[in-house]
């Protein structure tokens, strides 16, 4: 079919663009510490080091070599997963920290994306279906509220209300104890501890999906094919979810990549406020401690996560929407 081949061409273009973005990330991540004013050695090698340790590190990172050699070394290190050792937690390898922290942040982001999509989209559909009624007004008003309050403010509010006034949720940490009898027990503990951070991270986007879905549907509901679906003898629910939501869905999906991008930034804030030991907190601490290898690695991983999820969202969008890459 004609559309399949142009779809492939479309995806190929995307792949090329994302590869270019990936290359840019690699370059920027390499350049930033080196273009900052001052001697690169003082940036990469912490001030409190002995001359011996310093020399050893300079050697290890190849910081006394020409720039192009440094770049090759940098690439080799990245592709072998060698991000050096942390200055602040010397001599813990950076990769060890990442491996410990990354899943926690992925969990936080995954939960937040899932919750905002799974609640936000049906809520938007519900509001559009009841356009102008009280249900719609309540949904729109509360979405507007969550859309306008700053995330840090909501975080503090939640800590205050559920940490002090009605202390039903923990306000810090990822788990209550270090040892769990089973994975299920660990997961339950983790979920309980992350209620507040996940709510904080979801609210803004949940409201966003609600608005998007509502707006997208309000455009679609007066369309002929909706009236036709209705007169085919389908029930209201079948018309809404079988005919109105599917064409409204792809534009919402494009927001997914965007949300994950914003979440990476949000993770730094939320993890810091809720003392959640994830990548965001690691990055924040690394910045305070001028722990350059960790900064570089966390930046790299967050950027790759964002890029990867945006890419996936876009591919998914292309596959789902037959109109993309259609008959031009």
């Amino acid at each position, binding site marked *: *079919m*004609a*559309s399949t081949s142009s779809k492939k061409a479309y995806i190929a273009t995307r792949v090329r663009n994302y590869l270019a973005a990936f290359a840019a990330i690699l370059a920027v991540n390499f350049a930033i510490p080196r273009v900052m004013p001052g001697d690169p050695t003082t940036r990469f090698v912490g001030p409190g080091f002995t001359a011996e340790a310093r020399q050893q590190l300079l050697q290890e990172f190849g910081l006394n070599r020409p720039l192009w050699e440094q770049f090759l070394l940098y690439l080799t290190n990245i592709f072998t997963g060698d991000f050096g050792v942390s200055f602040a937690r010397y001599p813990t390898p950076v990769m060890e920290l990442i491996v410990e922290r990354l899943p926690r942040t992925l969990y936080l982001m995954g939960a937040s994306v899932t919750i905002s999509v799974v609640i936000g989209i049906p809520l938007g559909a519900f509001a559009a279906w009841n356009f102008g009624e009280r249900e719609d007004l309540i949904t729109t008003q509360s979405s507007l509220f969550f859309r306008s309050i700053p995330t840090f403010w909501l975080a503090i509010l939640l800590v205050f209300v559920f940490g002090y006034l009605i202390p039903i949720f923990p306000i810090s940490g990822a788990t209550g104890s270090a040892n769990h009898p089973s994975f299920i027990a660990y997961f339950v503990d983790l979920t309980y501890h992350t209620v507040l951070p996940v709510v904080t991270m979801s609210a803004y986007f949940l409201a966003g999906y609600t608005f998007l879905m509502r707006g997208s549907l309000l455009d679609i509901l*007066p*369309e*002929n*094919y909706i*009236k*036709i*679906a*209705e*007169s*085919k*003898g*389908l*029930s209201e629910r079948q018309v809404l979810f079988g*005919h109105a939501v*599917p*064409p409204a869905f*792809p534009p919402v999906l494009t927001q997914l990549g965007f949300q994950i991008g914003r979440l990476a930034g949000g993770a730094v804030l939320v993890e810091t406020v809720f003392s959640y030991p994830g990548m965001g907190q690691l990055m924040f601490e690394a910045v305070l401690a001028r722990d350059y290898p960790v900064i570089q690695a966390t930046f790299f991983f967050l950027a790759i996560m964002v890029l990867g999820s945006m890419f996936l969202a876009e591919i998914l969008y292309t596959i*789902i*929407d*037959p*109109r993309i890459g*259609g*008959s031009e």
Partner: protein
Amino acid sequence: MSKQIQERSADTAGALLSVQNLSTYYSEDETDVPVRAVDGVNFEIARGETYGLVGESGCGKSTLGLSLIRALPPQGDIVDGEIRFEGREIGQLPKSEVKDVQWADISMIYQGAQNAFNPVKTVGDQIREPLRVHNIVPEGERERRVRELLEKVNLQPDVAEQYPHELSGGMKQRAAIAMAIACEPDLLIADEPTTALDVIVQAEVLNMLQQLQDDLNFGMLVISHNLAAIMKLSDRIGVMYGGKIVESAPAETLYDAPEHPYTALLLQSLIDPRRPPDQVETIEGTPPDLRDPPSGCRFAGRCPLATEQCRDMEPPLEVVGEAHEAACFHHEEVSEL
């Protein structure tokens, strides 16, 4: 299919569809002054008959069609009258209780067939859907049935796998017809089936409707603002003005001897290629405001024959000849226009 054939032979006496005093209004809420889009309409359609409904834009044609298939938008409401379909009253029932009639017995080609298909579903899926909803054809045979339907409207069966944006305007209109006849309905409503198509395709579509009707023997309501377009196709024509049917007659009678001034003016305004454009009659003035229609004859403001009586009283729809009805106090004078 055999079920439908049985029903067909069982019910030959009496009209297929009989509409009595139907009124459909639009309003946003209770405080809103309603738009009286359809206001006390009566007509009948027999099996195998084609009823043409004409009238200028906004006079309530689509509203009438949507009332029959019970697919009015949320603001629209049937406020009075009855719709009898095969003897069963379907106008006053809640929408949820007429689902079995929709599409299986009464179906519709919607105005604006360009948007008749959901952009993210294949054409075939959408034609198949009513077969599933009404369980018309056994599941395993639906695929084949869809292909047959597409062939019936002169489309390649492969169109089933295509998405709407891959079809041309004329193809979409034909696919919409295939979708409308999927369940072999008893009544087909075709709302502006030829508008927005080029002339050649228009003729094709009209011929196709005629042929399908000969095949399937459904009653048909063809709606158009263009009298010329549906004149040949229709057995009977109803002329609608400001929410009311003001004249109805067999197509030929209406053409030869209209008894309502509005019909006469419509006929005079038909575009004849031999007539220079400056001699084509147009109807001066604007249609009545359906929120606040005039109390007398709704056409009085634009009618060359209007008198005091016309402005004071509403002319009833009366028999003026054989199978011929008109709502005009001065219908005898219409021939002089």
